[in-house]
């Protein structure tokens, strides 16, 4: 992230490589913000960082899709318990789900504030999002501890244990990475290294965060709620 953010300073004047091909776009003469090929895909006319992020998230769809599909493939095939319905707590998971959902809201507001050049609000919203993410991960740590200690469900206990911990554990790891990432972005804004013109940096971090949220929307409904709806 920071490397791209710093490109602002490094390429502020190195603008000559910018002129070929798409002068038609440049009606306003905003040449003082040139970023060369580092940030713009000259062929598709989209920011490279955003294209990279969407492509990465596409691969993440397959990654989590595999984990969820595997969970379902082995559901009801464990030869030793406990069974999902005996360990899941809808009450607790509902709270953490709500917290994560709200973090998507604050994330969207952070990008919005960044684009409106309200840096203070952007930083606040990023920190709030990170706090929500931390709360979510804390709930997950509690859940794992509860399952492991009180319900005697370990990774190696059964197919359910293996597939459940792998799937939700990878999701929790993604949230953790997201929290660190958002705090770094907030720090870079604070130091003045990300300007509102470069809001795409915050937006890309936001895309990752929203993606982690939609993965949980699917897991919460398919894995937790279905267990009691069948």
């Amino acid at each position, binding site marked *: 992230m920071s490397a791209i953010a710093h490109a602002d300073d490094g390429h502020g004047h190195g603008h000559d490589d910018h002129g070929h091909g798409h002068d038609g*776009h440049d009606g306003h003469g905003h040449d003082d913000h*040139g970023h060369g090929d580092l940030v713009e895909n000259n062929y598709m006319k989209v920011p490279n960082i955003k294209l990279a992020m969407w492509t990465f998230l596409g691969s993440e769809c397959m990654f989590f899709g595999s984990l969820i599909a*595997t969970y*379902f493939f082995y559901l*009801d095939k464990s030869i030793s318990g406990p069974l999902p319905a005996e360990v899941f707590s809808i009450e607790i998971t509902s709270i953490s789900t*709500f917290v994560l959902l709200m973090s998507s*809201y604050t994330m969207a507001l952070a990008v919005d504030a960044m684009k409106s050049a309200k840096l203070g609000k952007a930083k606040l919203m990023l920190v709030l999002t990170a706090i929500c993410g931390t709360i979510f991960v804390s709930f997950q740590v509690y859940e794992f501890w509860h399952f492991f200690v009180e319900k005697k469900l370990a990774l190696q206990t059964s197919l359910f244990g293996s597939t459940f911990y792998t799937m939700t554990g990878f999701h929790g790891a993604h949230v953790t990475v997201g929290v660190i990432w958002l705090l770094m972005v907030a720090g870079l804004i604070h130091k003045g290294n990300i300007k509102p013109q470069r809001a795409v940096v915050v937006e890309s971090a936001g895309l990752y965060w929203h993606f982690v949220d939609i993965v949980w929307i699917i897991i919460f409904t398919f894995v937790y709620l279905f267990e009691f709806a069948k």
Partner: protein
Amino acid sequence: MNPALHDVASYHTHSKLYTRTAVILSIITAVEIALLYVPPLKPILVPLMTVMAIQKLAMVVGTFMHLGDDKNVFRLVFLAPMLMAFLMIYVMTLLVMPHFSPYGGGYVRLAAQRSYDERMGLLPAAAAAHKPARSVEEYEKLFADAKDHGAGEKVWGERCAACHRADGGGMAGLGPNMTDDCYLHGGKVHNIVSTVLNGIPGKAMVSFKGQITDEQIEQVSLYVRSLRGKNVADGKACEGEKVGN
């Protein structure tokens, strides 16, 4: 201008739209959870909740992530794999969901339930056990007189080989070796019949009562007894007590 650069002056805030979206998302989630407590809806809950989850997903992707009004290439690189992921989940789930599945529910689930109850001390010690039909002596005589174990061997291949290996040598973490002189639950034919009938709570050995006929249980038990002493190559090490002939 460079599309990677954001034009602050011409930007209009979306915060009201975001607030509205967050409220709707919360309501859908609340309704989803509340539906669990409405018993008459149970038959249609799964499709209903699927629609609601996809709706939430579409709102986050469309509004918060702005995929709807962004460039085509983003939709291509994201939605195509997402479609594949859902297709994969759907196919795997279709194979497994109880209504469609040749496996789902069934004895595996019951065995899991029972072994868990046992481990957690939820079962009374004397769970109703199935008794072998004949006495210890009758089974031993039956074994002494038996010439052919073909029927038992067939059941073995279908039901037992998966955990005890086709040649009976056993598998690490699963079934013990049946070809040595060691037994965890007794080496008489009567003991073997009882083990196959009742399974071993807390272990991978499930009860086969009702899964196969009582006659098949006797046949396979006699076959297992006939394996003793074969000591196949690479068999699992001795577990339990060594028995004499």
